[in-house]
Every structure is written in C-alpha cells, then in structure tokens.
C-alpha cells in the first residue's frame, strides 16, 4: 500500500469518529499552543532586553578614569581626572577602532525663554551620533568646525525638547542658556527611550566637547571616552590595545594600578541573552511536558480504539490486509491526529500570542524554528505513543479478531 492510500484510510477512520478524534487532538493542540505562547513571550522578552542593550551599541567600549584616593578614602571610578581628548586621539589611531568620542558630562539647569529644566549636558565629538547609533531628528548634529571653534551650539534630546518647548514649536534656531552661556540649538535627536538600566536617555543636551571643557567645566580632562569597535569581534583586541596605549601615555608600570577602567557592553549583553535563553528553554520545557501528556492521551484513545475496532481489524485482515498494513494504518491515525493537532496548536498559540501582545502589551516574537520544532515534536509524539497500540492491532489473529464480541 502506498503512503497516500494509508493516510487516506487513516483519515477516513478518523473522520468516522469526529468527536473522539477532536477530543484526542485537544491535548496536542493545548500542548503546542502552550509551547508557542511561552516561547513567544520568552523570546519577546529576550529580544527587548537585547535591543535596549543594542541601543547602547554592542561594539561600544567605555573608558573611565580610575578612582582618586584622598586621605585613604578611595573615590569611585571616574573620580580621578586623568583622561584627555589627546588620549582619545591616540586610541582613534588604533586598528579595529571605528570611532572615538570624548564625553564631558555635567548636570545643570538649562533655560529656554520662560521654561527651564535640569538635565545632563554632555560635551561630545561629531562621532558620538554614530557610536551611539543615535540619529538626528531635525537640524544637524555637532560637526568638526563646532569642535574646533568651541561653538556655542547644542543638540537637544527628545525629553528636553518636550520640557523646554512644550508648545510644539521647532527648537532649531532657538537659544538655550546653559550655565549662563547662550547656545544656539542646531538640531534635535530622535527619541531613544529608556536605557537598559531604566534611565531616560532622551533627557540630555549635547554640545561640542571642546565647548563643554572650555565654557562649562573649565577642565582639560574628560569624564569618559566612548569607543566604537569596527566589529563585535574587534572589541576584545581593541580593549587590550587601548589599555596598553593608555598605560604608556599615563606612564603606568607593572605593579601600579591603572588610573582608568575599560568596560564593554558585550559582556553585559551576553549575560542578558544567556539568562533569556535559559528562561526560554525552561518555559518551553514546561510546555513540552503538556505535549507529552497530550501524547499519552493519544495512546490512551488509540488503545481503546484498537479494542473497540477489533472486529474491523479482523475483517480488514480477512479481506487481505497484511499485519504491516494494519500497523501502518493505526500508526498513521495517531500521526495524523498529532500532526493536525500540532498545526491547530500553532494557530491557537499564534492567536494566544497576539492576544498577549494586544492586551498585556508584552513584547512577543514567534520564532519560526520553534513552530516547526513543535509541529515536528507533536508528530514524533504521535509516532511514539501510537506505535504500541498499532502493534497491538497488527498482532491480532484474524480469526480471534473476527470472533471478538
């Protein structure tokens, strides 16, 4: 018998007993739907964590000054003032480095007309927009001539635009007062949202780092250097090279501790995505248990079905069905049940996922490989749990089966 003919026989047998077939399938439907919904929520959560980390740039390396020790009390990282824009230039020349921006930060009051707002003012280089993958929404970003001329120009983050220009007028061309000095707004930034740590990244004003040093802090040092590696795999070597360069420039020799600290976001990103993956597998595992329970349901029903259809099996054998043909037919019945159940489960799971996304506003993502895997798994469940009843059917003697009451 061809596979097609066997499948048709199986389908006919299943259609003859619609209610029972549907109830049997239900276990698999629920199992697969549960797998899909849990995985979709798990993956959704992981993707959203990943994307918030990516919004900082996973190729990003941050160099901060080390701590300063005053009368034995060690300040935290960044308390020492050792990094200079010249360090940044030296790092920019290293292989594997895409771009470098010094960052000078201070919290201060910013005034525009009758509105004022306390925010973080950061002095940065033109490369900053690229390093942070943070595009300009209107106007332009700080450019090289702003840096060389210590121009009094500013680019506003979305939150600052909202607070200082609440009436919706374009801030480009307006003047904001930063620490008493008037700055012309030349552009605004597109909204970036919260950082991975829950900070509002849009609550910021960016100016040229030279202007920040000269006009606001009056220092020759910067708070940090942001470096973007050319590629994710360059992060580790770049980190090594820049550590060497900075040690040379700062004349630090072996036993002395470094007066700076280098961090990258890749390790954070990795840890976060690993945690997410573990959660995802855990959830899918729990859901898979329900799939197995569904499989046991199939076996249960198939056993009943074999007993109930003993005479039918006897007749099929009498009119010429081989034992193997009977085995295949019953196996096909359970595979058809579990596969159709699996597909219905995909539909139900997708619908459930959309509902969760719609009403709970949770981020979700349905990965195709999980859909394929769960349908495949459902089919395997059908084979595994269908084999024993099918074999029981095939082992019947036609005489006994025909005589069965």
């Amino acid at each position, binding site marked *: 018998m061809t596979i097609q003919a066997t499948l048709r026989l199986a389908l006919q047998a299943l259609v003859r007993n619609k209610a029972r077939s549907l109830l049997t399938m239900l276990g698999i439907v629920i199992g697969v739907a549960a797998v899909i919904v849990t995985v979709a929520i798990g993956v959704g959560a992981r993707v959203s964590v990943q994307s918030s980390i990516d919004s900082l740039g996973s190729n990003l390396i941050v160099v901060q000054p080390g701590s300063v020790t005053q009368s034995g009390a060690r300040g935290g990282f960044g308390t020492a003032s050792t990094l200079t824009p010249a360090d940044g230039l030296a790092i920019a020349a290293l292989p594997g480095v895409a771009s470098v921006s010094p960052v000078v930060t201070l919290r201060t009051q910013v005034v525009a007309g009758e509105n004022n707002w306390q925010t973080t003012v950061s002095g940065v280089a033109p490369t900053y927009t690229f390093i942070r993958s943070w595009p300009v929404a209107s106007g332009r970003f700080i450019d090289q001539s702003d840096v060389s001329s210590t121009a009094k120009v500013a680019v506003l983050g979305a939150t600052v635009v909202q607070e200082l220009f609440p009436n919706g007028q374009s801030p480009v061309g307006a003047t904001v007062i930063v620490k008493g000095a008037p700055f012309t707004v030349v552009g605004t930034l597109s909204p970036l949202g919260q950082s991975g740590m829950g900070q509002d990244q849009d609550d910021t004003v960016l100016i040229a780092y030279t202007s920040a040093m000269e006009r606001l802090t009056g220092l020759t040092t910067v708070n940090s250097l942001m470096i973007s590696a050319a590629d994710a795999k360059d992060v580790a070597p770049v980190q090594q090279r820049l550590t060497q360069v900075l040690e040379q420039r700062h004349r630090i020799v072996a036993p002395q501790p470094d007066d700076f600290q280098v961090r990258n976001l890749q390790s954070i990103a990795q840890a976060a995505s690993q945690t997410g993956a573990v959660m995802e597998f855990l959830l899918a595992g729990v859901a898979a248990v329900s799939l197995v329970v569904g499989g046991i349901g199939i076996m249960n029903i198939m056993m009943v079905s074999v007993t109930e259809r003993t005479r039918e099996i006897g007749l099929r*054998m009498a009119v010429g069905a081989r034992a193997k043909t009977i085995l295949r037919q019953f196996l096909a019945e359970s595979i058809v049940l579990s596969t159709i159940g699996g597909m219905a489960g995909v539909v139900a799971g997708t619908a459930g996922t959309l509902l969760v996304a719609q009403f709970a506003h949770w981020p979700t993502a349905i990965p195709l490989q999980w859909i394929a895997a769960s349908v495949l798994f459902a089919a395997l469940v059908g084979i595994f749990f269908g084999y024993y009843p099918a074999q029981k059917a095939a082992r019947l003697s036609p005489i006994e089966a025909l005589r069965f009451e």
Partner: protein
Amino acid sequence: MTPVVEAHALRKVYAMGAAEVVALAGVDLTLDAGDFVAIMGPSGSGKSTFMQIVGLLDKPGGGTYLFEGRDASNLSADERADVRSRRLGFVFQAYNLLPRTSAIENVELPMVYAGVPERRRRSVAIEKMELVGVAPLRDHHPNQMSGGQQQRVAIARSLVNEPGLLLADEPTGALDTKSSADVMQLLSRLNQEQGITIMLVTHEPEIAAYARRIVTFRDGRIVSDARNAERAA
C-alpha cells in the same frame, strides 16, 4: 482442471491449557471449480476450523492443503493475506461491514488492500452491487440497512476481487427466514450464473439444501459427503 481446494489428511490441534482439543483429525476433501458445497455438523465438529484453514486465515497443524493447485500449508501470514486479498471472498454471519461507512466504500475495501486504482474500484464496486441487487443502497451506512441488505452488501464485497472461492460462514445465522431465503437464492444464482465456487458453513439443513453437495463433519472428521439430490431454489 485443477481443483480449487485439495485437502489431504488435514489436522489441527488446539492447546486449551494443559488439555488438547483435536479440531481436525485428518480431513480429505477436494472441491472443484464451480461447485457449491455446504459443510454441516454440530458445533465443535471442526467445520469452522476447516473453513479457516481453507480460507487461509489459519495454518493446518498437519497434512497438506493445496489451494488452486498451490501448496498453501506453509505460507507465511503475509503470503496468506495476499492470497486472501486476490483469490478469496468471505461472507460472515455478522456481515462485518465497517460502521459509519457507506455501502460502496465497504464493497471497495478488499480492492484497497489489493492495490486496485481508485477509479476502477468504484466501477467494479458498482458492477458487483448491481449483480447482487444493492446498487440503490450505495450511499447507505450499515445502520440504515436491514440485515438482509447488509448481507447482500457483504456478498458484493466478497465478489470484487473475482475470487476463486467464496467462503460463507453461517451467512444466514443472523437473518429471518425470508431474508435467509433471499440470501441463499442469491448465492445459488451466483454459483449457477457466474460459476462462482462456494463453500458454505452452516448447521441448518434447510440452508445446506441450497448447495449441490453436502459434507457433514463430526469430531474433526468427515462422516458423510453426498451430492444433493433435492436442491432448494
């Protein structure tokens, strides 16, 4: 011409726990093509066992059995299934139609296992249903038919593979007198007009009376084998 059935010294012993039950104690029987034999005997006489061996549902315990000239004593289960599928037709007391399945699909069933293409299955099924007079019932399910109608559908089913031998095991056992007569007349007609070889197992003399030849079993042996002088129908 090769006989359809040639049995020599057929034996069959069943183990019932520690005891042994001798169902067939050496049976010789030859059945020629076109014959219509009734196997009679009380229950336990071995007539059902004989029919199962002749119908290749079971193996003989001893002796030889040639079906259509071919030694069938030692065929494997699969080989027996193949011969059943191509050369044998069965009619049972309980009709054994598949429930919730239309008459025509029931009639087609043996051809499914014999690998007959679908279109041909349908036309052969219709032909045989017309032959036994149940063509108008083609879409009825078994529970929508009388016992006599179901048995006719079962007879149509037994004919679709042009069997060399039709085995009828108490075909009227579940039918009333009128339907029994109808079914037996149908079998007689198939034997006379179509030349179909029939082996009928029954314990009712008035049913056996339709056959050309009556063989009586007792205690696993044939005790009489006679041409039927006064045939019914």
